[in-house]
C-alpha cells in the first residue's frame, strides 16, 4: 500500500507532511491497514460467538475457514478462482466511488456481460478460438459497460439516484437473462436447467499453466492495476478525483463532469461485464441462471473493505474469495448452512463501515496535524 492512498472524500486535501518521524509520515497509511484489519478481526470474533450460539466450536470454525481458504494448494486455487470475478466486480463499485457515486449494480453488469459474451461466441461458430475469445471480451465489456452507463446517465441527465437505479437494473438484468435463456437463446437439449448452447470447449480460456486457476485472475489483476494507474497517475483520474471531492470546484475549473461520470461508469460496468465473460468462458461454458451467484454483491463489500482503492481490491478480493471458498468445508465438517458465508460477509460489512468513525482518532497514529 502506498502513501498516497486517500479516501475519495479527502482526495484533494492531502497536505505535504513536512515533519520527521515514521508515524507522522506513515500514520495515515498505517490507519488504512490497521483499522480495516481490526474491523475484520472484530467481525470474525462476533461470527465466532454467533456460531457458538448454535453449539459449534468457534475454534473449529476458524481452523476450517483457514483450511478451506488458504490451508492447502487446492484451497488456494479455489480461493484464487473465486477472487478473479470479485476483483472485477469490486472495481464496478470502486471506480464510480472516485466520483462520489455509490454504484451497487455490479451483479447486473456481470449478467449482461455474460449474455453479451455468450452471444458473441455463438454468433461466430467457425472462427479461430483467439478471435472468438477476443470478441467475447469486447462484447462482455461493452455490454456490462453500457448497462452501468445507463445508471450514470440517469444520474447525470435526470438526477436519478444511482444507488437505487443500479440495484433496480440488477433485477431487470436477471429478468432479461431468464427471458432470453428460456426463450430465443435456449438450447433445446437443456431440460432441467434452461441454458444457452455451449460456447464450445475450444473457446474456453483455460487455466494458467501449472494450476487450476483460470486466466480470469490475470484479467482481474490487469484491470485492477490499470484502474489504479488511471485513477492515481493520469490527468483523467485526477479530474475524476477532483470532481468526486467537489463537483462545483470541478465545474469552475472547466471539467466536463457529465463526460467523467459516463466514462467512469462505462469502465466500471465493463469491468463487471468482463467478470461475466470470465465466468462463462472459464467456468460455466454457457449462460444460465447459475451466473447470478452473488459475485456482484460480494464485490460491493470488497470495494468498501478496500476503501475504494483499486490496488487494495486485489488482496481484499483474495481474502473474501477465501471466505467463500471455505463455505463448502464449513458445510461438510461443521454442518453450517451455506448462508453462513453471507452472514459473515454481512457482519464484516457492518464492522468495516462502523470503523469509519475511527479514522484520525487513534492516539498513537495521530501523526498528521
Amino acid at each position, binding site marked *: 500500500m502506498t502513501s498516497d492512498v486517500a479516501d475519495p472524500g479527502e482526495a484533494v486535501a492531502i497536505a505535504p507532511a513536512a515533519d520527521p518521524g515514521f508515524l507522522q509520515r506513515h500514520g495515515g497509511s498505517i490507519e488504512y491497514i490497521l483499522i480495516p484489519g481490526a474491523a475484520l478481526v472484530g467481525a470474525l470474533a462476533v461470527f465466532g460467538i454467533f456460531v457458538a450460539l448454535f453449539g459449534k466450536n468457534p475454534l473449529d470454525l476458524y481452523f476450517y475457514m483457514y483450511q478451506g481458504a488458504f490451508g492447502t494448494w487446492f484451497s488456494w486455487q479455489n480461493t484464487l478462482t473465486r477472487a478473479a470475478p470479485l476483483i472485477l466486480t469490486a472495481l464496478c463499485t470502486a471506480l464510480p466511488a472516485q466520483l462520489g457515486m455509490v454504484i451497487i449494480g455490479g451483479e447486473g453488469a456481470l449478467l449482461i456481460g455474460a449474455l453479451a459474451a455468450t452471444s458473441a461466441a455463438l454468433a461466430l461458430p467457425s472462427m479461430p478460438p483467439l478471435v472468438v475469445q477476443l470478441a467475447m471480451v469486447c462484447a462482455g465489456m461493452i455490454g456490462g459497460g453500457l448497462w452501468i452507463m445507463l445508471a450514470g446517465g440517469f444520474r447525470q441527465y435526470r438526477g436519478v439516484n444511482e444507488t*437505487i437505479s443500479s440495484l433496480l437494473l440488477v433485477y431487470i438484468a436477471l429478468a432479461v437473462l431468464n427471458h432470453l435463456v428460456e426463450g430465443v437463446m435456449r438450447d433445446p437439449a437443456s431440460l432441467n436447467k434452461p441454458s444457452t448452447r455451449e460456447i464450445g470447449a475450444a473457446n474456453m480460456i483455460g487455466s494458467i499453466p501449472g494450476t487450476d486457476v483460470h486466466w480470469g485472475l490475470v484479467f482481474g489483476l490487469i484491470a485492477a492495476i490499470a484502474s489504479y494507474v488511471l485513477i492515481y497517475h493520469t490527468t483523467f483520474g485526477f479530474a475524476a478525483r477532483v470532481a468526486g471531492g467537489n463537483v462545483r470546484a470541478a465545474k469552475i475549473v472547466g471539467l466536463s463532469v457529465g463526460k467523467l461520470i459516463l466514462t467512469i461508469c462505462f469502465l466500471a460496468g465493463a469491468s463487471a461485464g468482463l467478470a461475466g465473460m470470465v465466468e462463462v468462458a472459464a467456468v460455466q461454458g454457457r449462460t444460465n441462471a447459475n451466473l447470478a451467484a452473488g459475485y456482484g454483491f460480494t464485490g460491493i463489500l470488497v470495494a468498501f473493505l478496500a476503501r475504494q482503492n483499486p490496488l487494495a481490491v486485489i488482496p481484499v478480493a483474495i481474502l473474501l474469495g477465501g471466505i467463500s471458498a471455505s463455505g463448502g468445508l464449513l458445510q461438510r465438517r461443521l454442518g453450517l448452512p451455506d448462508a453462513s458465508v453471507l452472514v459473515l460477509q454481512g457482519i464484516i460489512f457492518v464492522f468495516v463501515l462502523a470503523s469509519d468513525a475511527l479514522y484520525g482518532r487513534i492516539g498513537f497514529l495521530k501523526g498528521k496535524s
Partner: protein
Amino acid sequence: MADGSIGLWTVPVAVLGGAIRVSTPFLFVSLGECITERSGRINLGLEGTLVMGAMSAYGISYLTGSPWLGVLAAGITGALLGALHAGICSLPRVNDIAVGIALMLFGTGLAFYLGKPLIEPTAPRLPAIDFGWWSDIPQLRAALRINVLFLIGVALAPVLYWAFRTTRWGLLIRTAGESADAARAMGYSVLLIRLRATMVGGFFAGIGGSFLSLFYPGSWNEGLSSGQGITAVALVIFARWDPMLCLWASLAFGGAAALGPALQSVGVTSGYHLFNAAPYILTLAIMIITCSPKRTLTGAPAELSITR
C-alpha cells in the same frame, strides 16, 4: 380459454386482486421508509429487513401456532435492525447509504441462515376476510379475499399523513429532517429522533415481510423477496415523502407485479420474466420521468443525503 369463464376479464380482475394482495408489502415498507426519510435519514437496508421479517414471522408462527405473534415478532425484528442501522449511522463520518447496503446483505444472509430449517414445515397463515361473497365469479371472489394487514396499511396512510401535519411527533420528525440545527436548537437530540424514526420504519418493514411469508405468497423460501424492499424505498422518492401518495403508488405497483402471473393464467407465457420485472422497470421509468438534475425534488427533506 376455458368455456364458462370470464375470458380476458381474468386479466384485469387478477390485476385488481394483485393490486390488493401484492401491494401490502410495498405499502408497509414505503410507509416505514417514509417516516425514516422524513427524519433525514435513508435506510436502504429495508430489503434485508423485509426478508428477516418474513423469516421470523414464519418461524414464530410455526413455533407458537399463532400467525399474529409471528407478525409481532417480524415487527420487533425489523425494529431491532432499524436500531442497528441508526446506531451505526450515529457514529461520526458513517454514511447511511453504505450502512443500508451492508444491512441489506446482512439481513438476507441472516434470514437464509436462520430460515434453513423453516423451508420444509408449514406454519399457520394469516386469515383472510371474504369481501367477494356477493359475487358468483370465482376469480373475483379470489381477488377480494383481503387480508387484515392490507386494511391496516390502508388506514395507516391517512393516519401518518395527519400525524406528520398536526402532531408534536410529526413536527419533530420533520424538523429533524429539514434542519438538524433547528431541532438541536430546540433542545432535542436529532440522533434520538432518527433512532426512533428508523426503528418505527423497521417495524413496519418487518410487518410487510410477515405478509409475504404468512399470506401471499404464503411460504418461506430464499426467493421470497427479490427487490421488493428496494423498490419500495424508491417508491417513497417519487411519492414525494407523502404517505397518501405512497398508498396510491403501492397499489399501482401491486397491480404491475400481478401482471405477469395474470397474463400467464390466460395463456400468455412468452414474456413471463419480463412481466415479472414490471415493478422494477416501472420504478425506474417513473424515477427517470419525475426526477430532475436541476432542482431538488419538492417535498424532499433537506437533511436527506440521497437528494443532495
